[in-house]
């Protein structure tokens, strides 16, 4: 229904603001929800892009924030996963108040730099911190949508690995879906690391992402994987620096810093 690639260069005017309607909301974690939206005349998007959301108060005051699109371009509706920032201006409304049937003003899709398409060859390494998983999940969902229709030869053409850092098990988004994706695809590997409270009996990583962990998880630099890193600014900068230190080509490492709190407030 939506085109797989958006001809952004062919638009005739600024990206329009439009009112989307909330089709449903899904609880992801105690602090995060996915909002599924019907957007009139949605032109389609690429995995990794975001939308700008604008809230207008009764007195006319406006607050605007950017949210990565969580859904694959193949889906008819778009999904945003929002994590509540306690004294945020926008996120508490989206996680606590907005419900099915409500309207939400947004514009997009925005951003042609931090995007990945199935047409791109080469291994795919995704590194996420906290809510930085959202645009990377769109990439994995897009990859899965293509593999659903392809044969085994195509499956092995795009090996993918995700390294996902969260404070604790309950804070990690999409756990069940990631488990299903891994189960159905031997070319996909997912590694979690928990930085505050690993689950009981956890034998995996239990610290912040560092150079040693990346050396273990990433393909060697000579494989030239495409890398996407997303999350709080300090994590993203540390990971990008470590990858370059390990020998990865900086031109192949794309970053999306979410800012100090790791999410839009």
């Amino acid at each position, binding site marked *: 229904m939506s085109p797989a690639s958006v001809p952004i*260069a062919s638009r*005739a005017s600024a*990206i329009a603001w439009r009112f989307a309607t909330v089709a449903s909301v899904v609880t992801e974690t105690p602090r995060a929800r996915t909002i599924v939206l019907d957007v009139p005349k949605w032109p389609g998007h690429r995995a990794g892009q*975001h939308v700008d959301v604008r809230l207008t108060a009764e007195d006319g005051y406006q607050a605007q924030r950017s949210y990565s699109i969580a859904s694959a371009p193949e889906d008819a509706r778009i999904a945003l996963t929002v994590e509540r920032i306690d004294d945020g201006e926008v996120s508490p409304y989206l996680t606590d108040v907005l419900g099915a049937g409500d309207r939400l003003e947004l514009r997009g899709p*925005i*951003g*042609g*730099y931090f995007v990945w398409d199935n047409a791109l060859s080469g291994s795919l390494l995704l590194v996420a911190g906290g809510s930085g998983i959202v645009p990377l999940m769109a990439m994995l969902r897009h990859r899965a949508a293509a593999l659903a229709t392809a044969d085994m030869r195509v499956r092995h053409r795009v090996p993918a690995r995700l390294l996902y850092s969260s404070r604790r098990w309950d804070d990690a988004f999409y756990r069940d879906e990631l488990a299903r994706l891994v189960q159905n695809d031997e070319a996909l590997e997912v590694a979690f690391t928990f930085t505050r409270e690993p689950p009981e009996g956890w034998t995996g990583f239990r610290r912040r992402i560092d150079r040693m962990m990346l050396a273990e998880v990433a393909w060697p630099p000579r494989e030239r994987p495409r890398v996407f890193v997303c999350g709080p600014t300090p994590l993203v*900068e540390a990971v990008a620096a470590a990858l370059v230190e390990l020998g990865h080509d900086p031109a192949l490492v794309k970053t999306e810093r979410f800012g100090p709190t790791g999410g839009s407030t």
Partner: protein
Amino acid sequence: MKGEALRLDGNAAAGILSEVFVPDLTTAQATCANCGTIRAMGALPVYAHGMGTVMRCPSCDAVILRIARTRNKLWLDLTGARLVVMAAAAAPTVV
């Protein structure tokens, strides 16, 4: 807050840039007027705050682009870029 924590990427400026430019500027290559470094604009460090958005050279820290919006004006300072190269917008033929 530490300076580095307030840094974002070029993508964070894509929204406001889309109000000025038709092609997606984040995939454009900018040449720093100060040191000559060439980078995709999506890869430039971005500092965004109430006053506006600033994109800096990752090599020499010079300001490459500044953009701000007041109520009905957009202010754009591109003097920090000696050159910007982007894919040409293909205008559709309206039937």
